[in-house]
């Protein structure tokens, strides 16, 4: 089979599928006797990628394979096709999802320890229904809590090829950097002087003006805050 036909078949299948196809699925488009070697399929995919440059769509490789997708920069216009605005997710849901994504596998209790609040069952249920997370096992402690991990669908949805592509987590500062000067400020206190600048003032902590932003509240804001 010539490479041009292979390319067309792969391209046509990806367009018709309307979802990601992995190499194995692409290979299965061909019968045993006509199936090109994997290298040739990969070469076809590369060529398709090149051909699609500068167009309204691109070939993208995500967790579960290759798919055609419409360019991100066109979203403003494309979204006008639909009346409904794209859904927003609550902070609670995003924080829970992020913890599972970065710390998997982990239990609901693990999430609660970091977030400092109970994780609602509703959130876990929604994430499972969206097939973004799944139970991958149970921790061997009393109660056998379920261990959650993210799925390929999660990666696909967020345009990621693997978990490595997640944005880097913020660094944690070493506690040895704890400012020893604070010991001083504890014995003293921070206050504002008349110029609005912070200075160290000796005194008991309780008796001290500390909130710098209260200084910034201007009387004209009252109309907004009080009515």
């Amino acid at each position, binding site marked *: 089979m010539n490479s041009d036909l292979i390319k067309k078949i792969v391209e046509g299948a990806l367009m018709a599928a309307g979802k990601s196809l992995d190499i194995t699925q692409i290979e299965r488009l061909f019968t045993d006797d006509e199936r090109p070697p994997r290298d040739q399929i990969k070469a076809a995919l590369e060529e398709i990628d090149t051909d699609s440059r500068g167009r309204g769509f691109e070939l993208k490789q995500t967790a579960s394979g290759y798919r055609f997708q419409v360019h991100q920069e066109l979203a403003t216009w*494309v979204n006008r096709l639909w009346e409904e605005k794209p859904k*927003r997710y609550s902070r609670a849901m995003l924080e829970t999802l992020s913890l599972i994504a970065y710390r998997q596998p982990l239990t609901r209790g693990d999430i609660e320890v970091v977030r*400092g609040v109970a994780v609602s069952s509703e959130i876990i249920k929604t994430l499972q229904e969206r097939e973004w997370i799944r139970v991958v096992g149970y921790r061997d402690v009393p109660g056998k809590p379920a261990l959650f991990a993210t799925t390929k669908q999660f990666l696909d949805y967020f345009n990621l090829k693997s978990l490595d592509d997640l944005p880097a*987590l913020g660094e944690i500062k070493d506690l040895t950097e704890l400012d020893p000067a604070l010991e001083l400020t504890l014995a003293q206190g921070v206050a504002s002087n008349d110029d609005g600048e912070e200075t160290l003032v000796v005194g008991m902590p309780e008796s001290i003006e500390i909130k710098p932003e209260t200084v910034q509240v201007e009387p004209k804001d009252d109309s907004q*805050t009080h009515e």
Partner: protein
Amino acid sequence: MSDQDSSIKTKTTESNQAINLAVSAVNAPLQEEMPFAVIQGKELTILPKDLYIPPDALEVILEAFEGPLDLLLYLIRRQNLDILDIDVAEITRQYLGYIELMTSIQLELAAEYLVMAAMLAEIKSRMLLPRQQAEEEDEEDPRAELIKRLQEYERFKQAAEDVDELPRMGRDIHQATSEAPDRDQQRPHPDVDIKELVTALADVLKRSEMFESHQVEMEKLSTRERMSQVMENLRDNQFVPFVALFTLEEGRLGVVVTFLAVMELIKESLVEIVQSESFGPIHVKAKTS
């Protein structure tokens, strides 16, 4: 950060101003010329009656925070402080200010907020304790645990915002599809291996043998067993018509077995047999000793 979030933030900030004003209103008698002044160690318990707080403002505050850690982070960041620089005494004061305000208007407060208040108070008291120079080496900073948790929470708070920013299916990117070519719906034939054929034949032959031998066993009726069954039928000490002992559905073999059983019972003197007239109905009765 999403628009929704920022709108909540805006409200929050307004509400905070309301709280700050509440704070200053309480302190107004002390320092009239400087409205945003000092709290002299007094806990805030009563809302000034003349202070207007937008309805639901505090609920909005509470909803805007993802728990005590989030509220603490907010208080710290509001002062442009690094987490490592937190002044526990001041943060505790502000935190308690919020808690007091919320409880004073009977807002239902998650237990976690109160737990955090207790923790802050404990850290504060430990910080205030005068320490021996020698002890300082090995004693851990009382804030360490709190700072660790705050840092950890902040990382994931940030991660959640980053994840929210990722190009997302249906919002930033869209699956591209083209109409598929016409489908021909003919279903392909299943593959059959010749081994399957041979195995199937072996199965069917084996089963038919089993079927035959099974039938033969069915026909083997025990005379002894039938004798017991007849005795069972005669249990009530009544005369039973001889013909009623037979079950025609059992066929010839069944009838023969029953007949043999009755003969055997007579021979063993277990039953008596009565015929009141020639060619009249025969009756059978269990013998009473």
